[in-house]
């Protein structure tokens, strides 16, 4: 049997992938938007709905970033509400291991798993930033090098809490409700003990996703995670990542199928491939307004370029490699600013591109573009050739950005026998084929 494709639906995020200027763009915060996307994903028999987390609004040059969608709900509360309007769809939330604490978060995730009948998932991310820390009691307490140590110990502590109940409630006749048992977790980051307030949940342990890409992140995923939310969406690149991560599993006594690789990808559909490419270009122009083009260029140049015309040529001055990054609240993207700038200059000169045209070319191009049949075939090829085990689809529109995909691509994947036509299990672990 062909490998089955795992599908996740990413609620559009707070970066320029999400187009807010389109007339079809709806609210980023009204609950109806979340209901629409989640129910569309469930109609398409997706495995899960996926939500990012906000700990602080992004800033650039010390100012709150105002060009992209801003504002989002609390991850756990909105997932709990979505459990009421969906039946089988997994509910995955991003929650930072640095600015949460194990007892409370384990309790909240176990609660979500109970309230959803076994559909909860936790995407573990890390941060060390003093920038985020300004919103929290402990401030920027964690050294950068320790972020995966903390995440690993956090997951371990959460698992111990989830396993800590000594019995199932309750033996009514004898008057015994339940013995909670006790836990004690002492590690380099945590020193906690006591009783956990929630009995073992339907999945036992909610599904754990991991999103970091560094060697530390890959190792953590190999040791602890059920799935990786990766950023490798090119075929060969994906295959190499897939081999690398799956080869790390054996030393933890795990089989390759116990860790799923699921890159975040975008898509554009059209009546013909040419039509799809035209739409893709239109969407790219929406995603990269003149102001956004300058701002994205500043992220590489690391200096104020607000005086430049987005429709004009690249600045003659080189990127500033001396100081701290001007952008805060987002992962660093350019390890070698000068080298990347040289590449961009060469491309702009060769094709005679303006700043905006260049940015449209070099940043965040859509991953899959074409007719529904082409996109279905490509997605399937990636999975069957082990570039990944499935995809987290990132639509560019809230809340209708997945409608076309579910209407047109899902039936083709089902015809090809690589996507379920009905849910066969009730839990997310069940959907993903994880024990």
């Amino acid at each position: 049997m062909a490998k089955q494709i795992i599908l996740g639906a990413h609620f559009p995020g707070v970066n320029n992938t999400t187009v807010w200027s389109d007339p079809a763009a709806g609210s980023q915060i009204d609950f109806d938007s979340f209901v629409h996307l989640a129910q569309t994903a469930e109609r398409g028999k997706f495995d899960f709905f996926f939500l990012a987390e906000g700990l602080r609004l992004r800033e650039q040059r010390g100012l709150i970033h105002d060009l992209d969608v801003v504002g989002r709900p609390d991850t756990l509360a909105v997932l709990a509400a979505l459990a009421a309007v969906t039946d089988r769809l997994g509910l995955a939330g991003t929650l930072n291991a640095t600015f949460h604490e194990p007892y409370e978060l384990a309790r909240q995730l176990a609660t979500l798993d109970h309230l959803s009948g076994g559909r909860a998932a936790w995407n573990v991310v890390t941060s060390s930033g003093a920038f985020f820390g300004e919103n929290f009691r402990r401030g920027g307490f964690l050294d950068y090098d320790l972020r995966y140590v903390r995440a690993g110990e956090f997951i371990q502590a959460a698992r111990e809490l989830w396993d800590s109940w000594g019995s199932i409630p309750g033996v009514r006749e004898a008057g015994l409700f339940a013995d909670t048992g006790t836990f004690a977790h002492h590690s380099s980051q945590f020193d906690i003990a006591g009783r956990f307030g929630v009995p073992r949940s339907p999945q036992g342990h909610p599904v754990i996703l991991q999103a970091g890409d560094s060697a530390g992140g890959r190792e953590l995923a190999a040791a602890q995670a059920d799935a990786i939310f990766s950023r490798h969406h090119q075929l060969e690149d994906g295959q190499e990542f897939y081999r690398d991560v799956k080869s790390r599993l054996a030393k933890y006594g795990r089989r390759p199928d116990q860790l799923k690789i699921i890159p975040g990808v975008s898509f554009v559909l059209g009546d013909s491939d040419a039509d799809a490419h035209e739409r893709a270009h239109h969407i790219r122009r929406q995603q990269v307004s003149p102001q956004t083009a300058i701002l994205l260029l500043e992220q590489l140049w690391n200096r104020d370029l607000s005086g430049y015309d987005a429709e004009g040529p690249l600045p003659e001055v080189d990127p500033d490699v001396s100081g701290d990054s001007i952008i805060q609240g987002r992962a660093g993207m350019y390890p070698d600013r000068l080298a990347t700038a040289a590449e961009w200059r060469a491309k702009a000169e060769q094709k005679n591109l303006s700043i905006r045209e260049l940015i449209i070319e070099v940043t965040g191009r859509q991953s899959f573009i074409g007719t529904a049949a082409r996109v279905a075939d490509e997605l399937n090829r990636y999975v069957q050739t082990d570039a990944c085990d499935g995809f987290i689809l990132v639509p560019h529109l809230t809340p209708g950005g997945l409608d076309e995909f579910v209407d047109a691509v899902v039936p083709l994947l089902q015809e090809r026998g690589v996507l379920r036509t009905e849910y066969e299990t009730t839990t997310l672990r069940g959907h993903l084929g994880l024990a």
Partner: protein
Amino acid sequence: MTLHLAVALDGHGWHPAAWRVAPADPAAIFTAGHWAGLVAEADAAELDFVTIDDTFGPPSDDPARVTGRLDAVLVAARVAPLTRHVGLVPVATTTHTEPFHLSTALATLDYVSRGRAGWQVRVSARPEEAELLGLRPPLPAAELFAEAADAVEVVRRLWDSWQDDAVIKDVATGRFIDRERLHYIDFAGEYFRVKGPSIVPRPPQGQPVITALAHSPAAYEFAARSADVVFVTPADAADASAIVARAGSAPVFADLLVFLDERAGSAIERRARLDELLTEPERSEPQRSEPGQSEPQQREPQQREPWQSDAAVFAGGPEQLADLLISWRAAGVDGVRLRPATLPHDLTAITRLLVPLLRKRGVFRPRLGSLRQRLGLPAAVNRYSEGASVG
């Protein structure tokens, strides 16, 4: 003269032995269906709000009592899309939690309930709760409420940190928001500093309704300073009158634990039966008698005082309860929060026996709308808007 009517939900009910007589599996309190059913019942009766109880640590470590609870904010969010009218007021604690997370979670509850969110603030005084977090020794009792007041201040400022008109979607300038309409809250207190602004736009009510239970001087002081609604526990109407005279300007709800049946005698009998379950030396009994073995010996129920709670306990019929509540209203309370002794039995008795009676007498006339509107609270002015007096 009208009375606000709320119900406090916890586990299988407020009597510690309630779980022994609950119709469902004792583990039902860990399912969505349990909560959905209860809150739907309150919603259909148009009660003003339900509170959903919680503590940071487990409710009890005695295996003869209910030893677990789900997170109340998430329970409230889970039932919000299934209900239309009833206010949803979960307990959330301030001692070992992050004010920033509390603020965003409660703002989100206000979005998913379309303006029906509230919050019952609670501190965590037990030393073993500090060990669950493992970051600091227990706070002295006197400081718990000082820290809670700071947490409430941070939560309120974060709710206001977005003006209602912050999202502009101005294509000409490429701006989604007007950043001048977002505000750093720059809170710096003795226990924490929080920069802001919130990640969540200002919630539909602006300020969801903050409540607190007060039965100590420190708690009264905290409630007067920080809460929109205060729960109190009078022993009787005269006591209610004295408490109201001491309370601040916020609406006062009197708590009352309720055994209610059509026939007063049944309610009184049920109370006695539950109390008997408590007086059994439960933990010394054999775990379970196997079939064929003789049953554990029944002991004579000892003559004891009835079980008491922090709130007054009522056991009787609907007319008698209505009279009592009306006398408390006359003593000056704005509303009552009834704590059903057992669930769903006493909740259903409240919604189906008491509520129609109070409606017939013209005492309960719910005003539908946001929770603030239902409680007659003024629209919340944003402290950061131009023209608002910054306080």
